[in-house]
């Protein structure tokens, strides 16, 4: 897809283009604040098995017992008592867009989800506030045994599979926000790909927050059985409000022997959303796990997708792009834990900060004893577009095996004046030239995205560059 220059310029005038608000469709009057009663209520509304209810209540204790993280971004302004932990927007999940209330349907149309579904997706899950309001998987995939459903339905329809894997990679007490998610989770995706099945078109989930002070806590579990392949894509957005919302997801992925999973995120929350997410994958023998993690929006993001390389020959890759504009702190990164021989990992991070924004790369590469012949490369590049902005790099390298070969490199710089001068001498404005340079800078990430998302990301960059220089 090629975008003309006029289209570019038109985009630049729009600002955050996901800023619309639907009237409330809450099925019952939502309540603010968190307590065991709220957790019990969520569990009971979902008619959950008792083990899950107990798991939630225990997790709430962990959440309350754990201190706030003292490192990373400033989280002191989160008012947990002012958050809505559960809002149900429709009585029943739709399998047809026309069955949704008109406003909600309109939101998905504006986000272009039904159109994308027709063109290039194998399945779509659309979460609005706390629950998935629309869900559909292509018949061909259903026929060959691919399970793709929302997490609430999965707990009902595949209780044994869920019970076997839920919380095994990210235990309730892993960190404060994983504990919170475990206590109040709702929605999210469940995917199971049978052995040898290649899902060659992406499955997509989109997460939309509509209400002010919303707390969205989706829970995703993906199991790619031996030799299978799946690409899961998620997007998210919210209207702009003057007070804060909280998004705290947990994502667990298992790539079994020889499987390959690619998980792509284009996170574009409005700048009043705290985005505090725990994502972790296990890659078994010869499996490949890839995180493509685009963080463009939110007030604060703390997210470090990790890969545990548990089987010999497993490979992991994290591609991370982070943007922070005015008032934003994007603390992203990636982790690779080498726990088996001959495992490899590659982490590539690109960040851009502007208008006082702060980006951070925080990462860990760890080689366990006896994980011999591990190989890892980490590359972090940061662009800082003005003297108000900031970039941090905190890479941890821990090696307990002498045959490991690890490398880390990072650079921080500004947009090259000679590059700008050259492009401007060719008739581009400074804004256009900067956008072009930034797009070139993040190209190693965008070229890994499905084309529609790459175009979207490039547009976002151009949008964000508005007024950045000169």
């Amino acid at each position, binding site marked *: 897809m090629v975008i003309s220059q006029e289209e570019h310029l038109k985009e630049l005038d729009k600002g955050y283009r996901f800023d619309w608000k639907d009237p409330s469709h809450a099925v019952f009057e939502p309540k603010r604040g968190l307590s065991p009663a709220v957790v019990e209520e969520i569990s009971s509304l979902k008619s959950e098995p008792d083990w899950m209810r107990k798991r939630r209540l225990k997790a709430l204790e962990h959440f309350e017992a754990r201190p706030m993280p003292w*490192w990373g971004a400033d989280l002191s302004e989160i008012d947990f008592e002012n958050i809505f932990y559960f809002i149900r927007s429709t009585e029943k999940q739709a399998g047809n867009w026309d069955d949704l209330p008109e406003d909600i349907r309109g939101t998905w149309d504006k986000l272009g989800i039904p159109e994308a579904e027709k063109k290039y997706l194998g399945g779509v899950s659309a979460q609005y506030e706390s629950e998935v309001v629309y869900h559909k998987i292509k018949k061909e995939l259903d026929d060959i045994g691919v399970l793709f459903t929302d997490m609430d339905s999965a707990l009902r329809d595949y209780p044994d599979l869920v019970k076997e894997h839920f919380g095994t990679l990210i235990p309730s007490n892993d960190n404060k926000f994983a504990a919170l998610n475990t206590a109040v989770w709702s929605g999210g995706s469940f995917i199971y790909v049978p052995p040898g099945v290649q899902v060659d078109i992406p499955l997509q989930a989109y997460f939309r927050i509509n209400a002010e002070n919303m707390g969205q806590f989706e829970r995703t579990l993906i199991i790619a059985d031996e030799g299978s392949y799946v690409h899961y894509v998620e997007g998210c957005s919210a209207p702009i409000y003057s007070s804060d919302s909280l998004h705290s997801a947990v994502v667990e992925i298992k790539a079994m022997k020889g499987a390959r999973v690619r998980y792509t995120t284009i996170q574009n929350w409005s700048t009043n959303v705290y985005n505090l997410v725990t994502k972790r994958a296990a890659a078994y023998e010869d499996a490949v796990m890839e995180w493509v993690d685009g963080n463009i929006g939110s007030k604060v993001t703390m997210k470090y997708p990790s890969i545990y390389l548990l089987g010999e020959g497993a490979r992991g890759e994290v591609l991370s792009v982070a943007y922070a504009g005015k008032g934003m702190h994007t603390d992203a990164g990636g982790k690779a834990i080498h726990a088996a021989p001959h495992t490899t990992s590659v982490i590539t991070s690109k960040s851009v900060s502007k208008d006082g924004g702060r980006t951070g790369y925080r990462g860990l590469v760890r080689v366990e004893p006896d994980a011999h012949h591990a190989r890892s490369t980490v590359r972090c590049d*940061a662009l*800082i*577009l*003005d*003297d108000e*902005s*900031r*970039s*941090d*790099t*905190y*890479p*941890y*390298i*821990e*090696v*307990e*095996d*002498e*045959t*490991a*070969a*690890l*490398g*880390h*490199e*990072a*650079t*921080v*710089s*500004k947009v090259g004046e000679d590059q700008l001068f050259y492009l401007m001498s060719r008739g581009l404005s400074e804004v256009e030239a900067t956008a072009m340079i930034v797009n070139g800078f993040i190209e190693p990430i965008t070229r890994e995205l499905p084309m529609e998302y790459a175009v979207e990301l490039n547009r976002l960059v151009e949008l964000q560059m508005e007024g950045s220089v000169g």
Partner: protein
Amino acid sequence: MTFDRAALDALPIAPGSTGAIRERAFAQFEALPLPSQETEEWRYTDLSEFDLDFAAHVPGHGEGAPEPRVQGLAASLLQHNSSVVMTTSGQDLEATGVIFCDLDLAAEKYPDLVGKHLHALVPTDRTLFTALHGAFRTGGTFLYVPPDVAVEMPLQTLTYLDADGAAVFPHTLLIADRGAEVTFIDRYVSPDLGRGLSDAIAEIVVGDGAHVQYASIQEWGTGVTHLAVQRARLGRDADFRSLAVGFGASLARAEAETVLAEPGGFSEMLGVFFADETQHFDHRSVQDHAAANCTSDLLYKGALRDHSRAVYSGWVHVRPGAQKTNAMQTSRNMVLSESAKADAIPNLEIEANDVRCGHAASVGPVEEETLFYLQSRGIPRDEAERLVVTGFFQEVLDRVALEEVRTGAELAIQEELAKAI
């Protein structure tokens, strides 16, 4: 004996302003906790069970100390245990106004200079160990070079510890006034001891346009715990080049910090370390760019053998307004044995945009092909390993400008490798 009020009162009288420092630091020492691994700064070194039972003050006499490795020193100072026992001067330094003497003597004779600078760069309340140092230090080195005076040959302090169970508090206060030039070596030596504590501080003031080369050669014996803080402040257009060589001690934690406080400063920080047996090294560096138009470059290389463990963590800070900063930070680790362990954490915190900053870190095995090649040429495995490590370190040593310092470091490395491999 231990670090209590009685031990403090038994120390020789603290001259000049150091008396007040001693009292203040002792109060801080009593109030501060042992560093905890729960803090980021001490994450990789566990001192929570560290036993502070050492002899606080052991007078020395100078016998048994090794000869200097470096020939042609402009002057040298010998501290044996808690006492400075000898200062020799090969040239007529006094005529040029250079002051080189026992820090306590300087506190008495030059109260203004010492009063202004002692513990200004490394405050006593930084940690429990800097407080302990402030309270119990005796001896140490004072070096002052007046404006525009260039001292061609290096000066050296040898701190020699041979009392089992004793603590020593090496302190170097080096002030190079505007336009001065000087090279200084801090060398730490001991035999293998049951236990020993080296709680060391180096404060280095590099005046406007001054050039300072500073080398520390740490060759403590087994049993010694070495906890060192080195901090340099660079004035306008100052030039500071440091070299840290670390081989000794059972546990060595060395922090090296450079503050580029005024525009135009240049800082080079080099390090080589070799760890074997069960040695634990924790090297930390800070390149703090507080002013515009400064350059800093850091290269640390370490080789590890046996069950040793080495951590390198470094920070590059670029403060708001420190435009045109050029900062580079590189850590390379070579792991020679299966059970050695290396960690590297090179951090960047950048708050200005017109900068060039980068870092690189690597941890890797020794090239088996290289060893195989050397062995195929008839060189025994041990010798081949020594050659490979020497070659690995050479990149750092080649950057040491002054031949005497370079040769001294090379000799120290050869002695260490001959012992270890």
